[in-house]
C-alpha cells in the first residue's frame, strides 16, 4: 500500500534519512522505533510533503507521492497525526474535527466518522465546544487522532502519540489505536516507547541515525536485546 524506497532526506549539510526503505501493506500495523534524532519525524514529513526528499521514491498504492503537491496528499487517503498533537488551538474541538474531515472522503462519511470518533473518545463529545488549546495533553492527542480518522483514511500515520502523556493516558491511547487497527485501518506508528509500539505491531523497523538497523515481525523484535542497546548505548 505504502512503499518507501531508498528515501534520502538531506538539508543544510545534515543527512536526516539515508536510503530508508519500508513497506506498509493493506490493514497492516507497522511500527517504527528509535531514539530521538533518528529521523522518524523526518520520514513522516517526507511522506506528507513538508520536507523535500533528496533521493528515493514514495509510492502510495499506484501513485508516486513525490509528484503530488503536499496539500493534495491528504486527499489520497493518508492521514498524518503529527508529533506534539498540533491541534488548532484557537478553534473548538468540533471545528478541529471538521477540518479533519476536509477532504472529499471525509465529507462523504462525515456522520459515520463523527459517531465513530465520539464512541472511541467520549470525552471529545463532552468537550466539543471547547477551544482545543485548553484541553489536556491526553485529550488533545485524542482530538488529533480523531481529526486523522475524520478524513476516512486508508492509512493512519501517528507520530509519537505518547509524548508528554502520563502513562495511564498513553495506555488508553494505544488501546484505541489497537481498536482502529482491528477495524481494518492500516497504521504506521512512530514511537519512542518501544514496548507499546512493538507489541501491537505486525511488523517493525528500528531506526538509528537515519538508517534502518533492525527490521522484523513483532516477535522477532521483542526477543532482540539489541533494541535496548540502540536506546541506551551499550
Amino acid at each position: 500500500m505504502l512503499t518507501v524506497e531508498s528515501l534520502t532526506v538531506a538539508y543544510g549539510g545534515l543527512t536526516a534519512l539515508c536510503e530508508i526503505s519500508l513497506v506498509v501493506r493493506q490493514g497492516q500495523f507497522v511500527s517504527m522505533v528509535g531514539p530521538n534524532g533518528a529521523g522518524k519525524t523526518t520520514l513522516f514529513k517526507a511522506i506528507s510533503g513538508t520536507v523535500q526528499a533528496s533521493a528515493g521514491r514514495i509510492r502510495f498504492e499506484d501513485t508516486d507521492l513525490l509528484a503530488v503537491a503536499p496539500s493534495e496528499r491528504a486527499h489520497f487517503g493518508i492521514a498524518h497525526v503529527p508529533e506534539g498533537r498540533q491541534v488548532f488551538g484557537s478553534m473548538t474541538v468540533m471545528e478541529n474535527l471538521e477540518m479533519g474531515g476536509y477532504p472529499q472522503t471525509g465529507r462523504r462519511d462525515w456522520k459515520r466518522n463523527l459517531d465513530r470518533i465520539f464512541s472511541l473518545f467520549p470525552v471529545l463529545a463532552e468537550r466539543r465546544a471547547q477551544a482545543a488549546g485548553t484541553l489536556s495533553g491526553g485529550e488533545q492527542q485524542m482530538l488529533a487522532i480523531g481529526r486523522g480518522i475524520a478524513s476516512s483514511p486508508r492509512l493512519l500515520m501517528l507520530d509519537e502519540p505518547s509524548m508528554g502523556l502520563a502513562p495511564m493516558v498513553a495506555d488508553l491511547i494505544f488501546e484505541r489505536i489497537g481498536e482502529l487497527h482491528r477495524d481494518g485501518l492500516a497504521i504506521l506508528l512512530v514511537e519512542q516507547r518501544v514496548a507499546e509500539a512493538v507489541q501491537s505491531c505486525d511488523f517493525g523497523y528500528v531506526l538509528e541515525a537515519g538508517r534502518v538497523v533492525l527490521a522484523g515481525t513483532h516477535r522477532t523484535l521483542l526477543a532482540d536485546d539489541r533494541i535496548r542497546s540502540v536506546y541506551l548505548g551499550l
Partner: protein
Amino acid sequence: MTSFGNFVEIFLQALTAGILLGAIYGLMCVGLGIIFGVMRVINFAQGEFLMLGMYFTFYVVAAFNLLWFLGPAVGPYTGALLAGPALFAAGYALHRFLVSRVTGISVAGTEGEGHYAQLILTLGVSLVLQNGGLILFGSTPVSVRTPLSARAWEIPLLYDANAALFLNKARAVAGILSVMVAVALYWLVNRTRLGKTLRAAADNAAAALYMGIDVDRAYRIAFGIGIGVTAIAGGLVATYNPFQPYIGLDFVIIMYAGVVLGGMGSILGAFWGGMTIGLVQQLSTLVLPTQLQNAAIFVVFLLIVMVRPQGLFGRATERI
C-alpha cells in the same frame, strides 16, 4: 440650562460621535486584524488600501457616476461596499506576487521570521501607492457627497427640553453599515467552511497542510479579505470626510493601535480595539486641541504596546 447639563450634553455628543466613529475604526481594524492579528503578517500599506477604497468609491460614485440609478443617498454606500470585492482582488494579487515571498514557510527559519522583509517590502508598496495616488488623483482633497452628510437626526435628551443629541445622518449610516459588515465578516470567518479553513491555516500551517488544506491559497484569500474589509471602511469614511492620497498614513497608527489594543489573534478584539480608539479620539476633543488628538492616539498606542502588549482580549502567553 445648567453648565453641568451643558457638559453632559457635550459629553454625550462626543460619546455618540465616538461610538459612530469607533464603529468605522473597528471595521478597518478588523481588516488589519485578519492580516496582522491572525496571519501575523506586517502590512505597512494597509492605510493606502484604505485610501484606495476611498478613491474607488469616489470614482465610481462621484466622478463616473456609475451608480446613478441608485440615487444620491444609496449610491455612495453601495460604492463603498463594492470597494470591498474590488480591492480584495488587489490584495489577493499583492499577496500572490509580492507578500508571499517574504512570509510563510520560506522565511520561517530566517532572522526575525521574515518580519524585517515584510516591513520593508510593504513600506515600499505604501510609498508607491501613496505617491502613485498623488500622481493619478492629484493632491486636492475630494469627497463623496451625499445628501445625508448635511442632515442630522435630532434626539431629544430626556432630562432637559432644550437639550438634544445631533446624529449626523451620513456618519450614522456609515457607522451602522460598518457594524453590519463586521458582523457579516464574523459570520464568514466563524461559521462557514471557508472561514474555518482560513483560521486553521493561520493557526497552524503545517497541521492544516496535513488536513489537505491548500495553505498558500488560504493565505492569499485571507490577505485579500483583510484588504477588502479595510477598503470598505475607507469607502464609508469617504462618505463624510474629505480625503487626499496621503490620508492613509493618518490611519495606520490607528489601525495598529486598535489591533494591538484588542489583542492579537482576535477579530472581535480588533473591532473593540478600534471602537476604543474612536472613543478615545472623540472624547479627547473635550480636553485637547485638534492637532494634539492624533498625537494622543500615538501616546495611547505606545502605552498599550509597552504596558499591556497582549491587549484586552489577547492571550497572556503572547510574547512580544
